[in-house]
């Protein structure tokens, strides 16, 4: 499991490799909050290398979205596989996030 961050124009892109679950969610949260603290406002989390997400992982995404919005920024998500789409649909979090099929389209949408 790892979280790789890179800057693409004005957007901070985070790649989640492996699972996003109770044991590592704080690491993702802290990395994104550190960037927010430094002044970054546009965030894209890409799930093309992600296995599964548990309720803690979903909760961290909700929390980050709220904190980023409070600072006038935006968090978008891309590349959810069918399993992850099902999770977002079950929890109705697909209505809370802007989710894009590809990273490229997500980057263009900011």
């Amino acid at each position, binding site marked *: 499991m790892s979280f790789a961050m890179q800057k693409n124009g004005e957007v901070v892109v985070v790649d989640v490799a492996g699972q996003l679950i109770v044991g590592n969610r704080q690491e993702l949260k802290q990395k994104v909050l550190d960037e927010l603290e430094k002044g970054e406002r546009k965030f894209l989390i890409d799930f093309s290398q992600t296995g599964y997400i548990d309720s803690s992982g979903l*909760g*961290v995404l*909700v929390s980050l979205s709220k904190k980023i919005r409070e600072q006038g920024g935006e968090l978008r998500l891309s590349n959810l596989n069918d399993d992850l789409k099902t999770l977002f649909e079950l*929890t109705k*979090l697909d209505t809370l996030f802007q989710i894009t099929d590809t990273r490229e389209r997500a980057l263009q949408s900011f």
Partner: protein
Amino acid sequence: MSSRPDRGGTPLLDSLHVALELEIPSDVRYIERVVEVVTHQVSRLAYHPRQVTLNLPVALTEALSNAILRGNADVTQRCVRIHCDVNRERVILEVVDEGSGFDLLACMQDPTSPENIVREDGRGLFLMARLMDRVESFTNHGNVVRMTLHRHD
């Protein structure tokens, strides 16, 4: 273990039954490895890929997380035991902690309601109930959460 048909043409898988017993300290870092061990066995019995990559991993992660953080109050010295009983028809997973138990129905809330959807917590039991066919909670030498999932092709 093999999927080779026997002489009567019945797949050998049909008569297979796998039972696993695992025990871990109350530490969330063990969760991923337990999920790997369990899903590996289930995948060998030709369950639907989605059951192996979504239903079981997420539901088991939730049950383990609850057992470690709530049941055992994150006290590392307390153990969590996992029983996995799987055949070609169903998987039964039991997660046992040293806590006093909880009322499953009373703790269940709807995380999709407008007032809850923006909350960070409260989706764990909901996901277990949605992803498994049956979820029960009872006390038997510890607090037990039992989850059952029937095999789909």
